[in-house]
C-alpha cells in the first residue's frame, strides 16, 4: 500500500473506533464502516497494534455489523448466548430419577447415553487440542483472570481488610517485579479508587495471588492478569503466610471484584488507560465450565496408580472445578460446544487448527473487555468461518467430485492450469494430485504450512477477500485458491526438476519460509484474475455462470452414473482418496518425519493383505505403490474394452488407462485383478469432474456409441490436447 504505516494505523483506528474521540474535529469518524474500502485496506495486512486486528476480523467476518453504534448490543447478546450454551450443554446428567434415566441407559433419549456419546467426541477433540500448535507456549498458559469473564475463576472476598488508598508509584514498583515473571502479561494501569470493600478485598486477594504466582512456577505461572498488585506492605514480600492465605481461601466468588491490570512489557509506548473497574460481568459465573475436562480426565491416564507427580498434578488440575483454565482448555470447550450445536458436522480433525489463530488473535487483544470475552467471540467468529468451509469437513461430500473439498481442489487445479499450463501438465504427468498437498492447505486455510505470525497475516488477506463476491459460499475463498496456486508457482523450478516422490515431499514440507514472496505472487495472480473477469474472459476455476455448461460436471456425471454400473466403486474410490488424505492428516503436519512414501508403503502392505482377501477397493496407497514401482499393470480379466485399453495406452500417459477402470466396474467390480493403476483412478476422477477439456460434442458422440465410459475418456483426452 502506498500509505505509510502510521497512516494505516490511523485509518484502522478511526474505522474501528466505536465512538468518536473527543478531539476529533476532522469528522473523519463515521458511524458506519464502508465495508468495501475496509476490505481493501485489510487485504494488505492489518497493523499489529492494540487489538485492531481482533476487531477487524470480527468486522470482516460479519460478527460485528458495519454500524458501529450497534456493536455493544450485538456483542452483549451474542456473548450472553454463548455463556448460556456453556451452562446448558456442559451439564452433568443425574438429576433425573433413576427409573427414567440411569448411567447404563442405552436408550436414545437418555441423558446418560448422550453423555457417553459426547465423551467420545470430547476425547477426539481433546487429543487434537492438546497438540495444537505445540511450538507456541501461549496455548499452554492460563487464561488471564478477569472479573468480566464468566468463565474465569471467580474471586473471593477476603475476610478482613483495611482500606488503603493505592498510589501510583507503588503500583509501578510492584509491577516491575512481576514483569520478569511472566512473558505474556499485558494490561494496563488502572486506578482502583472505588471504596467498596469488595474491591479492596479482592485486591488483597489478588495481591496474594500475585506474590504467590511469583513463587509458584508450576502451573499458575505467567499470564495471570489478575495477579494484580496492590500496595499492601505485606504483599510485597512473598511470605509463606501470604501463600497460605491464598491457598486457604478457596476462591468462590462474588464476581464483582475489580481486577487491575499490569502494564505491558512489550514495545508499545503508550499505555492506554482502560477503566474496567466499574464494569459488571454480563452474567454470573458459569460454574460447570470445567466439567468437560473432568469427564475425560480418566481417559488420559491408563494407570492411575503409577502416575508420576506431574501427571497427578495434571489430573488434579483437570478435575478441579475451580482451577483457572488453560487456553487450550478454552479451545476445547469452544470446539465441544460447536460440535454439540452442529451435529451435522460434529468435530473433524482440522477444526482446531482453524480455531487456534482466531482464538490467539482475540486472546491477545489488549483491551481487557475484549480479552475477557475472547472465548465467546472466538466461538462466533469460528462458527461464521466454519459456515464457509463447512463443506470441506463433511465427509459425505467427499463422494462426489463436484462437492466438498474435491470441488475446491479441482478449482485450484484449474486455476493453476490457467496460469501455468506447462507446470500443470508436468504435475499431472507425474500424477501429483492435489489431494496430496492441497488438501491440507485448503481445509485449514494454510495454517499448517506457515508459522503463526505468517498465518495471521495471510488470514488478513483471505478474510478480507472473503465475501467480496456475492453469491455462493464457495466463492468466498478465491484468494485462498490464488494463494495455493502461488505456493505451487513459487517452487516451480524445483517441481519441474524433481520426480514424484521429491515433488510430493517438497509440496508437503513447503520450503519457502518468507510468506511475503508467496503473497506477492498471489496478489499478482489475483490482479490477473480480476482483470480477466472484468474483461469478460472466462477464468477456469471460478464459479462463473457464463461457463457453467463447461465447467460444472453435475449433469454429466449424474447421467453417466446411471449408465455405468461402476458408479459405486468410482465414488468409493473418490471417497477412499479423500479418506486417505484425512487420515494422513497427522502425517501432513510440518513436524512429521514420516514422509508420504513411508505412509503409503505402510498403507500398501495393509491393502495387500486386504486384496488377498478379495477386497475390491483399492486403497490410494496401493495405487501409489504401483506407480512408484513404475509399473502399470494392465487389467487382466477385462474382456470388453480391450481395444479401448490398447488405444489408450498408446497415447500420452495421463489419460491412458482411464478406460480400463470402467470395465471391471461393469462386471460388478468383483475382480481382484481390476486395474489398480494410480493413473487410472485419477483420470477417472478427472473424467467425472469433467474439466474444461471435455467438449459437449464428444459426450454426445459417446452417448450415441452407447459405451458411456470409454468414450467419455476418449473425448476427454481428445479434447484435452
Amino acid at each position, binding site marked *: 500500500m502506498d500509505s505509510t504505516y502510521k497512516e494505516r494505523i490511523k485509518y484502522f483506528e478511526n474505522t474501528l473506533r466505536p465512538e468518536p474521540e473527543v478531539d476529533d474535529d476532522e469528522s473523519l469518524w463515521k458511524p458506519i464502516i464502508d465495508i468495501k474500502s475496509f476490505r481493501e485496506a485489510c487485504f494488505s495486512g492489518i497493523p499489529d497494534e492494540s487489538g485492531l486486528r481482533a476487531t477487524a476480523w470480527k468486522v470482516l467476518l460479519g460478527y460485528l455489523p458495519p454500524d458501529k453504534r450497534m456493536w455493544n448490543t450485538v456483542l452483549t447478546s451474542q456473548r450472553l448466548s454463548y455463556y448460556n450454551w456453556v451452562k446448558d450443554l456442559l451439564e452433568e446428567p*443425574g438429576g433425573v430419577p*433413576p427409573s427414567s434415566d440411569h448411567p447404563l441407559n442405552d436408550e436414545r433419549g437418555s441423558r446418560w447415553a448422550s453423555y457417553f456419546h459426547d465423551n467420545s467426541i470430547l476425547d477426539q477433540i481433546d487429543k487434537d487440542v492438546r497438540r495444537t500448535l505445540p511450538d507456541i507456549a501461549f496455548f499452554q498458559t492460563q487464561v488471564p483472570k478477569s472479573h468480566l469473564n464468566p468463565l474465569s475463576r471467580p474471586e473471593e472476598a477476603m475476610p478482613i481488610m483495611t482500606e488503603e488508598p493505592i498510589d501510583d508509584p507503588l503500583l509501578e514498583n510492584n509491577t516491575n517485579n512481576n514483569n520478569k515473571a511472566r512473558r505474556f502479561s499485558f494490561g494496563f494501569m488502572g486506578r482502583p479508587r472505588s471504596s467498596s470493600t469488595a474491591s479492596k478485598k479482592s485486591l488483597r486477594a489478588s495481591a496474594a495471588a500475585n506474590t504467590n504466582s511469583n513463587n509458584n512456577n508450576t502451573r499458575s505461572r505467567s499470564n495471570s492478569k489478575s495477579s494484580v498488585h496492590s500496595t499492601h506492605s505485606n504483599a510485597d514480600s512473598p511470605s509463606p503466610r501470604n501463600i497460605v492465605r491464598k491457598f486457604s481461601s478457596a476462591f468462590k466468588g462474588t464476581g464483582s471484584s475489580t481486577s487491575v491490570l499490569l502494564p505491558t512489557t512489550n514495545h508499545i509506548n503508550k499505555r492506554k488507560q482502560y477503566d474496567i473497574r466499574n464494569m459488571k460481568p454480563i452474567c454470573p459465573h458459569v460454574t460447570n465450565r470445567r466439567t468437560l475436562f473432568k469427564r475425560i480426565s480418566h481417559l488420559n491416564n491408563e494407570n492411575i496408580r503409577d502416575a508420576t507427580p506431574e501427571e497427578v498434578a495434571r489430573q488434579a488440575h483437570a478435575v478441579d472445578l475451580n482451577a483457572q483454565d488453560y487456553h487450550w482448555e478454552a479451545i476445547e470447550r469452544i470446539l465441544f460446544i460447536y460440535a454439540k450445536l452442529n451435529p451435522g458436522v460434529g468435530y473433524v480433525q482440522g477444526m482446531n487448527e482453524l480455531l487456534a489463530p482466531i482464538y490467539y488473535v482475540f486472546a491477545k487483544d489488549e483491551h481487557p473487555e475484549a480479552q475477557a470475552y475472547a472465548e465467546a467471540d472466538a466461538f462466533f467468529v469460528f462458527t461464521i468461518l466454519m459456515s464457509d468451509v463447512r463443506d470441506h469437513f463433511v465427509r459425505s461430500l467427499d463422494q462426489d467430485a463436484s462437492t466438498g473439498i474435491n470441488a475446491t481442489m479441482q478449482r485450484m487445479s484449474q486455476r493453476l492450469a490457467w496460469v501455468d499450463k506447462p507446470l500443470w501438465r508436468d504435475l499431472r504427468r507425474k500424477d501429483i494430485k492435489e489431494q496430496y498437498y492441497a488438501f491440507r492447505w485448503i481445509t485449514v486455510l494454510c495454517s499448517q504450512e506457515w508459522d503463526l505470525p505468517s498465518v495471521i497475516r495471510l488470514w488478513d488477506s483471505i478474510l478480507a477477500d472473503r465475501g467480496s463476491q456475492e453469491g455462493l459460499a464457495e466463492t468466498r475463498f478465491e484468494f485462498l485458491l490464488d494463494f495455493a496456486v502461488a505456493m505451487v508457482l513459487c517452487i516451480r523450478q524445483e517441481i519441474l526438476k524433481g520426480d514424484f516422490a521429491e515433488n510430493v515431499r517438497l509440496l508437503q514440507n513447503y520450503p519457502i519460509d518468507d510468506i511475503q514472496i508467496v503473497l506477492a505472487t498471489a496478489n499478482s495472480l489475483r490482479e490477473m484474475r480480476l482483470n480477466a473477469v472484468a474483461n469478460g474472459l472466462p477464468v477456469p476455476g471460478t464459479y462463473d455462470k457464463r461457463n457453467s455448461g463447461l465447467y460444472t460436471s453435475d449433469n454429466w456425471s449424474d447421467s453417466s452414473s446411471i449408465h455405468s454400473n461402476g458408479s459405486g466403486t468410482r465414488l468409493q474410490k473418490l471417497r477412499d482418496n479423500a479418506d486417505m488424505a484425512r487420515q494422513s492428516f497427522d502425517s501432513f503436519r510440518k513436524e512429521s518425519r514420516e514422509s508420504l512414501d513411508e505412509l503409503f508403503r505402510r498403507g500398501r502392505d495393509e491393502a495387500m493383505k486386504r486384496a488377498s482377501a478379495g477386497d475390491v477397493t483399492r486403497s490410494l496407497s496401493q495405487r501409489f505403490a504401483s506407480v512408484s514401482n513404475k509399473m502399470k499393470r494392465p487389467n487382466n480379466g477385462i474382456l470388453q474394452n480391450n481395444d479401448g485399453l490398447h488405444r489408450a495406452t498408446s497415447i500420452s500417459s495421463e489419460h491412458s488407462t482411464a478406460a480400463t477402470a470402467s470395465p471391471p466396474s461393469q462386471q460388478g467390480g468383483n475382480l481382484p485383478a481390476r486395474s489398480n493403476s494410480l493413473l487410472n483412478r485419477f483420470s477417472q476422477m478427472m473424467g467425472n469432474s469433467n474439466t474444461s477439456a471435455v467438449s459437449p460434442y464428444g459426450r454426445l458422440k459417446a452417448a450415441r456409441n452407447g459405451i458411456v465410459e470409454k468414450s467419455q475418456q476418449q473425448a476427454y483426452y481428445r479434447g484435452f490436447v
Partner: protein
Amino acid sequence: MLVLVIGDIHIPHRVHDLPAKFKKLLVPGKIQQIICTGNICDKETFDYLKTIAGDIIVVKGDFDENPNFPQSKVVTHGNIRVGVLHGHQVIPWGDQESLDIIARQMEVDVLLSGHTHRFEAFESNNKFFINPGSATGAYSSIPDTADPIPSFVLMDIQASVVVTYVYKLIEGEVKVEKLEYRKGDTGKVL
C-alpha cells in the same frame, strides 16, 4: 467417575451365567472401574468383567478359585476412601455393627462387602455401607435367605458425593434406585 460394584457371582458352581438383561446393561466404555466383592469363582467370568472396564479390583471370597486375590482393599477416589472385603470374614455375617468396626479399622468412608447375597445400603456414623448383593441371584447358605434377587450397584463418585444407582432384576425387569451419600454431612438417602 463411575464405579461398578458387583459380586457373589458364583459361576459356574451355583449358576451358569449372569442375567441377560444385566449383560445388556454392562457395556464397555461407560464404567471406569469395577470393584468386585468376591466369589466370582471363575476365571472366564473374571475375564468378562475385565472387558467391561480395564480397571478391576477383586477381593477374595470364600469360594474363589484364584488364590491371589487380596483379602481386602482400599481405593481412594477424590477424598472418599472406599474399602472392600468379601464379608465372610466378618462374623456375624452381615452384622451392621461388625461392619462398622471393620470400616473403622480400615479407615474408610465407604465399605463394600458381600457374602449375604442381599442388597443393602445404609449409613451409620457418617460411613456408608453398601452390599451389592449377588449379581446372579445365586443360592446363599445364610439361613432365612429366600430366593436372592440379582442385583448390582453403580457408584458415581464426585469429589465428596457418592451417588449410588442400584440395579435389581425383579420379575424379569430391571429396576433402578438411587441413593446419595455425602461425606461429612449427615447425608440423605433419596
